[in-house]
């Protein structure tokens, strides 16, 4: 990890720990506003330390089978 990072940038990198998180989750974990996380992430993206995966959009108008798969997935949890 580069040594010249701000503390908040460090905590963001640490929490990502090589994995992926949504911005809202990151914000909650770091106890920072979503807007702040977005700024931090942008700085780190500029330096090539973090990548923004193309947004996986929330499926607001779900394909017909998606709801069925959500229901199946929920049922499977109860087994």
């Amino acid at each position, binding site marked *: 990890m580069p040594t010249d990072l701000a503390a908040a940038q460090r905590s963001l990198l640490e929490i990502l*720990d090589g994995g992926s998180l949504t911005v*809202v989750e990151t914000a909650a974990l770091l106890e920072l506003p*979503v807007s702040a996380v977005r700024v931090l992430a942008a700085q*780190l993206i500029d330096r090539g330390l*973090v990548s923004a995966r193309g947004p996986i959009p929330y499926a607001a108008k779900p394909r017909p089978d998606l709801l069925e798969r959500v229901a199946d997935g*929920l049922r499977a*949890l109860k087994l």
Partner: protein
Amino acid sequence: MVSAPSSSSAPASASGSQGSHGLHLPDSARELVKILVTGPFGVGKTTLIDSVSEIRPLHTEEQLTEASVSVDNLAGVRDKTTTTVAIDFGRISLNGGIVLYLFGTPGQERFRALWGDISYGALGALVLVDTRRIDDSFEVLGLVEESGLPYAVALNTFPDSQQYTDEQLRTSLDLEPDTPMVTCDARDPHASVDALLALVQHLIARDGQSPESN
């Protein structure tokens, strides 16, 4: 979320090896779906999310800044006020790369400005109702209905809850005949999953009735 909807769901990932603790989105995540868990103060939203979430439920507080700008107030932002809205997040990874997010938020009139952001992209809402104080639910039911979000009602029963018939409850909550209403102990993961299922089955049934919606 309070954030711009398009980017609030954009996962940020650090380059390098894949993190190992359960916190991170599974590599298999392909589709994110979101369900709102709402209801009046102290009804059991956090408890329900806690009982089904695979991650320690996250809690965030967003500052809502409202600048009231009116034509006869040239100072513009003089009446700026800030409110804090608490939002809980839970996450459940389902088979087939679906990740279900639960957003817990109080449906209060004073958060109306945020409601659109929070409900953006949600499949539907699970509205928790404490039968000891039914009146407290009217506000949130009003907001949900206004936003056009399909919903199901989960009745949280507490030891000192009075017994009502379903009909009495439906009448006092003014529910449509096809709105699901289930009883749910939010502390019980099974019951909580069942409540979510009731909502999803309702969404499927609605879909079947309005093919043009897809």
